[in-house]
C-alpha cells in the first residue's frame, strides 16, 4: 500500500461545478484537485451533499446540463484534458476506458430490456465484434460476477437487489475499463450482501487491473478497499493521503470529527463525540474555511481567507491552518 510513485492515470485540477437553479447558484464542487495512479483505489469520503457524486459525474461528463455547469478546471485522463474533448471522443471513453456504477441498483437498469442485452450494449458500443461474440462476452461477464449465464435473457425485476448490482458491475466492467467510478455501490444493500459484492469488486479489480474511485460515506469500506482516501466537505477536498496515513494521523478537524462520530465495535466509549452543527448551505458558503463554524479549533484567521492545502506529512495533504501543528 505504498501508492507513492505510481504512473498517473487521472488528474483533476481546480475543478469547479455549480448548479444554476431559479433561486440561487449551488456551489457543488469548489476547486477540487485529485490524482489517481494506475491500479490504485481512491476512496472519496464525505456526507450527503458534499459533492462526491458530482465529481464522479463531471469526470464522465454526464452531469445534467442544465442545471449543472462545469465552471472551471481540467480533468486529465491518460494525459489528455477530457473537458476539452469533443462529445464524440468523450463517448468513446465512456463505458470503455472509464465506467461508472451507480448507487441504486433498483433503478440503474432499464426495466424493459433483458440484463444480457444491456451488458451486450456496452460491449458492442466499443468493440468490433460479431453479434454472437458480443453475446458470448456478455454471458462471460455475467458468470464472472457470479450469475449463471442462463439468466442472460431475464429482466431486471427478476433479480434481487444484490444480483442487480452484480449485473451493473458486469456492465461496467464489460469493456475492461482502466478506471471504474463506483458511487456508493453497496449502500442500498444489506450487510452480508454488501460483503459479497465488495469482495467480488475487489477481486475483479485485481484481475482486470482496473483503477477505481470508490465513493462512499462508510469509513469502514474505505479501510477495507482503498489505497488512498480523499475527504470531501462542502465541495472541497479537505484531506488527502494514503488510507493508512489518514486513518492513523487524521489531520483535518472534520476528518477527526468523522472518526469520533463513529461507534466503534471494539471501543468501550459510553458517548460518541459528534461534530456540532450542520454542513453549510451550498448556495451560501461562508468566507474562509467552510468548516470553521463547526470546528472546535476555529480561530479568527480561519474566517478571513481560505486555508491553503499543505503537505501535513509526506504524501498527506490537509486543507487547514492547523495542519502541521499538534495531532489529534
Amino acid at each position, binding site marked *: 500500500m505504498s501508492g507513492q510513485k505510481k504512473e498517473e492515470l487521472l488528474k483533476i485540477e481546480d475543478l469547479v461545478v455549480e448548479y444554476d437553479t431559479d433561486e440561487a447558484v449551488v456551489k457543488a464542487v469548489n476547486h477540487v484537485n485529485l490524482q489517481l495512479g494506475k491500479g490504485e483505489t481512491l476512496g472519496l469520503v464525505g456526507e450527503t451533499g458534499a459533492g462526491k457524486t458530482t465529481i464522479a459525474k463531471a469526470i464522465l461528463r454526464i452531469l445534467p446540463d442544465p442545471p449543472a455547469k462545469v465552471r472551471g478546471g481540467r480533468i486529465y485522463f491518460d494525459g489528455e484534458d477530457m473537458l476539452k474533448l469533443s462529445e464524440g471522443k468523450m463517448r468513446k471513453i465512456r463505458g470503455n476506458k472509464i465506467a461508472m456504477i451507480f448507487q441504486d441498483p433498483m433503478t440503474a437498469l432499464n426495466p424493459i430490456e433483458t440484463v444480457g442485452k444491456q451488458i451486450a450494449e456496452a460491449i458492442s458500443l466499443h468493440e468490433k465484434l460479431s453479434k454472437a461474440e458480443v453475446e458470448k462476452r456478455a454471458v462471460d461477464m455475467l458468470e464472472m460476477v457470479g450469475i449463471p449465464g442462463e439468466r442472460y435473457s431475464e429482466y431486471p425485476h427478476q433479480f434481487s437487489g444484490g444480483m442487480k448490482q452484480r449485473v451493473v458491475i458486469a456492465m461496467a466492467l464489460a469493456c475492461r475499463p482502466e478506471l471504474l467510478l463506483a458511487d456508493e455501490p453497496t449502500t442500498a444493500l444489506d450487510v452480508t450482501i454488501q460483503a459479497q459484492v465488495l469482495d467480488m469488486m475487489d477481486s475483479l479489480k485485481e484481475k482486470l487491473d482496473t483503477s477505481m474511485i470508490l465513493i462512499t460515506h462508510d469509513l469502514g469500506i474505505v479501510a477495507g478497499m482503498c489505497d488512498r482516501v480523499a475527504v470531501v466537505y462542502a465541495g472541497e477536498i479537505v484531506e488527502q493521503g494514503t488510507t493508512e496515513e489518514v486513518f492513523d494521523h487524521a489531520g483535518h478537524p472534520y476528518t477527526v470529527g468523522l472518526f469520533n462520530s463513529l461507534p466503534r465495535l471494539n471501543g468501550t466509549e459510553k458517548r460518541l463525540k459528534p461534530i456540532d452543527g450542520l454542513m453549510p448551505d*451550498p*448556495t451560501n458558503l461562508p468566507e474562509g474555511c467552510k468548516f470553521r463554524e463547526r470546528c472546535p479549533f476555529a480561530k479568527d484567521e480561519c474566517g478571513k481567507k481560505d486555508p491553503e492545502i499543505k503537505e501535513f506529512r509526506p504524501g498527506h495533504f490537509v486543507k487547514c491552518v492547523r495542519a502541521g501543528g499538534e495531532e489529534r
Partner: protein
Amino acid sequence: MKKKKKSHTREILHRLFKNKLAVAGLVVIILLVLAAIFAPLLAPYAYEAQDLTSTFQAPGKAHLLGTDNLGRDILSRLIYGTRQSLRIGVLSVAIASVLGITFGSIAGFYGGKVDNVLMRMLDIYQSVPAMLLSIALAAALGPGLNNAILAIGISTMAEYARMIRAQILTVREREYVEAARAINASDPRIVLKHIIPNAFAPLIVSITMNIGNSILAAATLSFIGLGAQPPLPEWGAMLSAGRSYMRDYGYLVIIPGICIMASVLAFNLLGDGLRDALDPKMKN
C-alpha cells in the same frame, strides 16, 4: 435548504405567480368572472333584444361584434354567455368531484372487498366513453342547461374517484399516518388532518383543468341541441345557431368559438401552472 420562513401555501403561490402563462390564465378567468357579474352593466344591449331591421350586421360601430340572424347584438350575448359557461364549469365539476371523492374515499378507506367491488363497478361505468355517456344522460334528462350540467357532472366523476383513491392508498402508507395512530389520533382525525390535506394537490389541479373541459363538453352538448335552449346566450348554442349562416357570416361561428377556446385555455393554463407550483419536482 432555504432559511426563509414560508408557509406551504405562500410558497406555492409564490411559484405560481412566477409562471407567466399561469398568471395570464388567471387574469382571463378573473375577467370572465367580472364579465359574468357585471354583464348588465357591460353589455351594450339586452341579450335577447331582437332587431329585425339590422340582422347579420358585420362587426362595426353600432355593434362591435356584429349581430346575428335575429339582429341580436353578439357582444352582449357573449358577455351574458360568460354566466352560463362559468355556471356549467363550476357546477358540473362540483357535482363530479363530490360524487367522485365520496366514491373514491369509500373505496380507498375501506379497501379490501369494498374497494374491489367499487372499482370493478367503476370499470364498467367507464366502459361507456364519457362523451357518449354525457350525451345519453343529457338525452334522457331532456334538453336544458341544468340537465346538461348534471349529465356532465355524473359522467366525469370517475376521474376524481380514481385519483382520490390512489392518493389515499399512497398517503395511507406514509409513516406520519402511522405516527398519528401511535399518538391516539382517531380515524376521522387521521383522515381529515393527515390524509386529505396531503392527497389534495393533484385534485386541485384536475378540478381547475376540468372546469375548462366541462365548458367544452357543455358547448358540445349545446351544439347538438342538448344543452342550453334558445334564447339563452350560451356560446355553444350560439355557435350551433350561427352554423347555418357560416358560408356568408363566418364571424357568427368564429367569435363564439374563440370565446370557448379562450376560457378553456385559461383554465388549462392555470391548471398547468398549479401542477408545477404544487410539485416543483415534476417541472424539471
